[in-house]
């Protein structure tokens, strides 16, 4: 495992090349590059249909400098299962050298993972393939034009949960996919954010050192869908973590660890919501209850994650109220 030094990392070849045609300021390619830069072994990727897939492989061009397969929307986990199974079979039969080491990754957005790909993901986690699924969560079906997914936050204005005269954006709260993955007993499950590249890449490296199915959920701001600026993906992912909307944690072989506790950097959720056009209507006086409800949902989730940490670390207790100064 290579040491995570920025100078060394900058010398690694980009396996997702520039000119990949993702939008300016998109979080997803940053996530992909950080994940790939953290892995020393050769990688094969299965990609679900979505922005990342569609923008990076417009025939006859491909931005991928590694073996890569896209087959459909809902089946990245099943597709990589097949690739990995073939690798195991050929290796066992001596048809490829026994010392061949390959890491298998699947990438999918939240639509392709939380929603349509959930069954395939569940199956692959349960079967125990030696692979890692990375969900880049931008909180909606951005590729088709910002439709709500089960990852879309409460209250968000999307094209299928528009803020109107009667309904004020998405009426439901988010699905907690990370905990669903965890419930499969996968040996490594984590949440990460591209603003904290060291944390993200350390998690990838840890995951790669563990055999079996791994799952990482990574926040990936989308300025088109979030109605923000093209230069604030990193600022908004940092704020997403500091507001505890997106807790950074991992569960490795049953041991849950909060890898970053905002403490004095902790901010109210309104500071993350405010710069995002999709939450504009939450700041109307009559929707004040929605801001309160959103904060309650965030607090409830943070308490739950901290609770897992505290149960795993009797000597390093975290106070879930710490830093909450408002």
């Amino acid at each position, binding site marked *: 495992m290579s040491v995570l030094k920025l100078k060394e990392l900058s010398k690694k070849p980009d396996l997702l090349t520039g000119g990949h045609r993702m939008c300016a300021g998109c979080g997803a390619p940053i996530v992909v590059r950080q994940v790939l830069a953290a892995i020393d072994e050769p990688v094969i990727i299965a990609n679900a249909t979505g922005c990342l897939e569609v923008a990076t492989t417009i025939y006859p061009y491909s931005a991928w400098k590694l073996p890569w*397969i896209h087959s459909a929307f809902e*089946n990245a986990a099943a597709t990589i299962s*097949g*690739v990995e199974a073939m690798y195991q079979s*050929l290796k066992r039969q001596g048809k490829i050298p026994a010392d061949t080491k390959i890491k298998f990754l699947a990438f999918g957005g939240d639509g392709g993972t939380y929603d349509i790909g959930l069954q*395939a993901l*569940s199956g692959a986690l349960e079967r125990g393939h030696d692979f890692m699924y990375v969900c880049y969560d931008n909180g909606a079906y951005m590729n088709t034009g910002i439709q709500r997914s089960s990852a879309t936050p409460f209250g968000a204005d999307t094209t299928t949960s528009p803020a109107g005269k009667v309904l004020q954006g998405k009426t439901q709260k988010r699905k907690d996919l990370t905990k669903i993955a965890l419930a499969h007993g996968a040996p490594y499950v984590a949440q990460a954010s591209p603003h904290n590249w060291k944390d993200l890449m350390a998690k990838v490296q840890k995951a790669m050192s563990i055999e079996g199915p791994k799952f990482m959920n990574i926040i990936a701001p989308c300025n088109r869908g979030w109605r923000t600026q093209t230069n604030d993906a990193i600022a908004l992912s940092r704020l997403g973590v500091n507001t505890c909307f997106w807790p950074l944690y991992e569960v490795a072989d049953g041991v849950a660890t909060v890898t970053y506790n905002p403490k004095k950097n902790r901010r109210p959720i309104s500071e993350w919501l405010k710069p995002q056009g999709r939450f504009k209507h939450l700041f109307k006086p009559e929707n004040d209850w929605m801001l309160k409800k959103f904060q309650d949902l965030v607090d409830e989730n943070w308490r739950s994650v901290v609770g897992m940490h505290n149960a795993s670390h009797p000597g390093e207790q975290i106070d879930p109220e710490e830093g909450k100064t408002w």
Partner: protein
Amino acid sequence: MKKVAMTGNVAVANAMRQINPDVCAAYPITPSTEIMQQFSTFVANGQVDTELVTVESEHSAMSACIGAAAAGGRVMNATSANGLALMWEMLYIAAGNRLPIVLSCVNRALSAPINIHCDHSDSMGARDSGWIQLYAENAQEAYDNTIQAVRIGEHPDLHLPVMSCMDGFIISHSIENLELLDDRQVGDFVGPYKGTAYPLLDLANPVTYGALHLQDYYIESRKQLHEAHKRAKNIVIEVGREYGKLSGRSYGLFETYKMDDAEIGIVALNSAAGTAKVVVDEFRAKGVKAGLLKPRLFRPFPYLEIADALKGLKALCVLDRADSFGAAGGPLFIEVRSALYDLPKRPVAINKIFGLGGRDLGLDDLRKVFEELVTLLDKGQAKSLYEYITVRE
């Protein structure tokens, strides 16, 4: 070579054991379940080298097969009816990516209403997916086709997935006498796998599968698939001939039965052809020049050869074990009738939809069909072009 008595499913499972694929996916659905169930015991007992991926759905079964075949190895699977329907999206993707997966389709009726018995609505619905389709009259043919499917699909001029079909329950669950080749003979016949042109596991030459083809490239990709299907016919014949040398059972595009001087004839797929042969013999005994054509290769459809084989008939009936609702006949009829169009002198052609959801096709049902064809010899005009038989009115 040895003579055995086994069901169609067990025969196909044994063909798979002898082929020894690198990866198989398994998901249960009646009546194909037994194939992968039997194969699982071969895996559990170390009789094959296969990595078995016990997926959570047929959609994932075909997805895993696609990933595995793209990785670079031999891949097989089995399903029926709604399972095939759930795979639908992935069937097109397997063909479009030119991956020579072999799928055993044990024909069963599609829902609704739900039914577990035989008809061809499942594989007929997949006929435009780009897969090669072979049909089998009995367990022997299902076994033989499974082995040949590997060679056909992996042929360097094709790289196409192959669906090998047999009738659910009627063949899949009936014990028949058949001949199995020796394991070594099958191993030599299928040979080492060379069916993936650009394997993902070739790390030195990284390849992108499944890129977005827009208006500027999509149609060229589809045209290549179209051209591959045009090449398939001769390869099916070539492989069938070579298999004949090995087994004593030669295969072509279709089988004809007493067609040389026939005036009336039936065209039927799969097990119904066996029943029809009995009735052909009865009518021959009465001095009626009756015959049968049983297509084996349905995709690509060998329309020139079939038209040539039917050109001497005065009247014929196509039996369809599937409907194409609202069309000008069942799927097989549409193909056969279209094939006849360019003949200078066309036979009268009628269509009967029969046996949906496993309804028996009895000898009497077929006697009535032949009697109707006899009357057409004089009248030349059918009372009904397209109708259901074996049905309560």
